């Protein structure tokens, strides 16, 4: 199917029907996912699909409709539904579409060879990572191994003359390992995602990490409720980043629903902390030449040496705030309106080796798992369940499970006193190992 032609045609119909502005967002692609358990294939799923999201603006009113049926009469209905919906809404002069024709050059988003690699090789990869994990002493069961891949093409056209498109690909595999000892059961999961098949980690590395994660948590001991240092492993970076991402959402800031809303230009974190949002990173899993409404992406610091430098905006929120879009319109898919979200979002690397951070800690916990919702973006409060390794006198002493950690964003961000050099930009939301000097821990 010629998606560009469909997009342009739909825009034309919208204009004929009286829309002031219109935007067609077409996503098409294919996916493959498979699961292996105990060496046997458990499932294989394959499909290709497509869909269109149509945004129309009429009298500053915004309507949206989506469809995955491209027959002419269905496209007609989609146009009509979007326009009908636009009529009943509240006019808002900030409802405008972007007109910047530029695209940011981002390399390494699409692996043209991915679909050529035979299915058998992908099945073999999942089998291998599972069998390697099961070979590790102490691992008693597999929770299964997976391989998945997808390719997609985004075509975006609007009535201001934008017609842009790009292709992207992604692939990944992972395994879950279970260690049992008496009545104890401990599980570890590790995966690796990349844009290119050739960049995937060796299965031995992924298998070992999954097995280690399960094994190191056996024979946990209780700890008392206390204040102590909390070291966050890169695996749990979201515990800090999730709340910040929502709190720097430009629309949330305008609504007064962000604990960072009034902190622009102020110190919100330790001087060690610089946070980058980067839509341009080569082979980045959250990179793209343009955002969910066609604005070129960029790389920019949102926090620099602890100072809050800026918020994230799409075109609508930017106009409301009297600033320029930062290229952060996010789309959940063709079926969603552009919201606001980050690209590759990370805390820049520090200088310490993770083992130096552990060695410098008298008493605390190296957190490997955090559950819950992370920092509350409205008021900055944080409380989560946690598991990890207890540290005494600079050494890992024993595993701890079933503890909680809690505090406020202010306390956590300003309390970061050590920052690791182990930043892995192959993940889209990440941080190096970091230490919060003191936080409330709930235990016995």
């Amino acid at each position, binding site marked *: 199917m010629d998606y560009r032609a469909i997009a342009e*045609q739909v825009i*034309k*119909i919208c204009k*004929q029907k009286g829309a002031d502005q219109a935007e067609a967002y077409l996503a098409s692609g294919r996916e493959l996912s498979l699961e292996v358990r105990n060496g*046997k*294939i*458990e*499932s*294989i*799923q*394959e*499909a290709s699909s497509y*869909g269109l999201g149509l945004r129309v603006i009429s009298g500053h009113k*915004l309507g*949206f*409709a*989506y469809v*995955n049926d491209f*027959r*002419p*009469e*269905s*496209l*007609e*209905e989609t146009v*009509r539904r*979007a326009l009908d*919906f636009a009529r*009943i*809404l*509240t006019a*808002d002069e900030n409802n405008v579409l972007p007109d910047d024709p530029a695209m940011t050059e981002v390399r390494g988003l699409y692996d043209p060879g991915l679909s050529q690699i035979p299915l058998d090789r992908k099945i073999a990869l999942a089998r291998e990572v599972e069998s390697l994990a099961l070979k590790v002493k102490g691992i008693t069961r597999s*929770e*299964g191994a997976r391989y998945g891949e997808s390719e997609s093409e985004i075509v975006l056209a609007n009535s201001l003359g934008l017609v842009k498109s790009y292709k992207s690909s992604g692939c990944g595999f992972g395994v879950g390992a*279970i260690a049992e000892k008496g009545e104890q*059961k401990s*599980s570890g999961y590790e995966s690796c995602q990349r844009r290119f098949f050739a960049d995937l980690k060796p299965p031995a590395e992924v298998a070992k990490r999954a097995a280690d994660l399960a094994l190191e948590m056996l024979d946990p001991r209780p700890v008392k*409720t206390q204040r102590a240092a909390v070291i966050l492993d890169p695996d749990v970076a979201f515990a800090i980043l999730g709340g910040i991402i929502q709190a720097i959402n430009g629309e949330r800031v305008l*609504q*007064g629903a962000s604990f960072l809303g009034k902190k622009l230009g102020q110190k919100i974190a330790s001087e060690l902390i610089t946070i980058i949002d980067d839509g341009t990173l080569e082979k980045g899993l959250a990179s793209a030449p343009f955002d969910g409404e066609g604005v070129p992406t960029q790389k920019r610091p949102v926090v620099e040496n602890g100072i809050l430098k800026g918020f994230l905006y799409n075109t609508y929120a930017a106009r409301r705030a009297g600033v320029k879009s930062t290229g952060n319109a996010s789309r959940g898919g063709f079926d*969603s*309106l552009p919201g606001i979200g980050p690209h590759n979002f990370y805390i820049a690397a520090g200088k310490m080796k993770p083992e130096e951070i552990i060695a410098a800690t008298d008493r605390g916990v190296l957190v490997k798992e955090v*559950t*819950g*919702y992370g920092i509350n973006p*409205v*008021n900055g*409060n944080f*409380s*989560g*369940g946690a598991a990890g390794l207890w540290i005494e006198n600079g050494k890992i002493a024993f595993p701890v*499970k*079933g*503890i*909680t950690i*809690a505090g406020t964003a202010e306390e956590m961000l300003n309390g970061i006193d050590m920052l690791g050099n182990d930043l892995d930009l192959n993940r889209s939301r990440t941080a190096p190992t970091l230490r919060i000097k003191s936080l*409330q821990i*709930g*235990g*016995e």
Partner: protein
Amino acid sequence: MKDVFPGLQPINRRKFLSLGLQGGLALAATPVLVRSLLAGEGQKLQVPDELLKKALAAALKRGGDFADVYVENRVSRSLLLEEGRFKSAVFGLIRGAGVRVIDGDKTGYAYTDELTEEKILRAAEVASFIATSGKKTQPLALKEQKRPSYIRVKIPLQEVADARRMEIMKRAHEAALGYDQRIKMASIDYYDEIRDRIIATSEGVLLRSSLPLIFFIVQTLAVGNNTSHMGRERLSRHAGLEMFDELPPEKAAREAARESVVMLEAREAPAGKMDVVIQNGWGGVLVHEAVGHPLEADNISRETGAFVGKLGQKVAADIFTMVDDGSLPNFRGTTDFDDEGTQMKKNVLIENGVLVKYMTDVLSAKQLKMERTGNGRRESFRYYPIPRMTNTYIEKGKDKPEDIVASTKSGLYVQSLSGGSVNPTTGVFNFTCREAYLIEDGKKTVPVRGATLIGSCLDIITKIDAVGNDLDFGPGICGKGQSAEVTAGQPTVRIRGITVGGTRQRG
């Protein structure tokens, strides 16, 4: 391209099609004609039985034990009223079909957005490649069945003008802002959909149904001197617009606003182990996470779950009975039959502390040689079914809720929960409080900030020592790789000694 979606007015539609094709995509018919042709949101999803039969035969061509074809059409509306403005409206038209083949323990699955014979048969072929066991199954002749419906509708969604939906939203918006001066913003999300399903299986089952759903979410922002709080209340049923007569939008709005304002005064929550009383209603998400997920039979057939090998054993306190019931009239987790065509019914999972049943889908029921419980569910045609909960709750007990609090010397009273998660292998769960209070000398006292509660499923159900007589429910969304509409419920319960993740060290 052969159209397998003829609709209710095939002649007119064909005529329209030819007109449409002449003018490319440009509209050739008069607007009035188009409206009458396309407004049929309630029109039946029609795929010829002959094609379903062909697809099942193609799916089992290389062998296998079971195959099914699932066809879906979903028409949805979503409206947002926020900051006093109707900000956006989203209209969705999605359809597709998926074909599944089960061969031994293996599942092959493929789907298509295009409901053409060519694409559906191609999906069947792709799914069929999974079969290698050599076992041959002949699909039984399809026989359309009528089943009892647990969903009664008085005001069908497809007959309701958008203005009526917006009126309901406005009522909630005004009630929220009018509740207290400290409410600075209200956000009203309205969503409804009609999901038409066709399920055809190699066992000869052929079912068609049309399922309405409403999901209404009120969020309110209260701003105090040095803190803010976002409160939330949700209403959802498989029902028509009459839902709002029984569940008034104003009431939901005032409830969200009340939570927002109360929590402005919240103090630090305590940290450490303590007794916790959880109020009736959505608090049932505790057992949904902690016990429900580990009882989904896919964990059991894979022998990884926390409850493996415990059937028939005493796993909980005598006063603890837990049920999953997908047939509760109009509930959010209810359907007439699950997405594999299994009849919904009441399933007692744990009875007076004894584990009596797991929740199965077709595959896990076959693997475990157990009955199908009606828990094979899927998010859409893009996913194959897996065991999922429906409406899950703790059966009511005998205690009066006020007595439960009065007999708790000190601890935490949890009035509402946000949600939680569980690792089904280890049974370690967590959930987060939305609104909680200290219990001091048998009395509910000051509000405390949202704290996390954590524990292990096998442990927690032995520690429930009081179950109230006030069973109630709340609607939610459950995620397990794919999302599902669920209800969680419980009476007021007390759990002895659970770890609370507060910020305040107790003296």
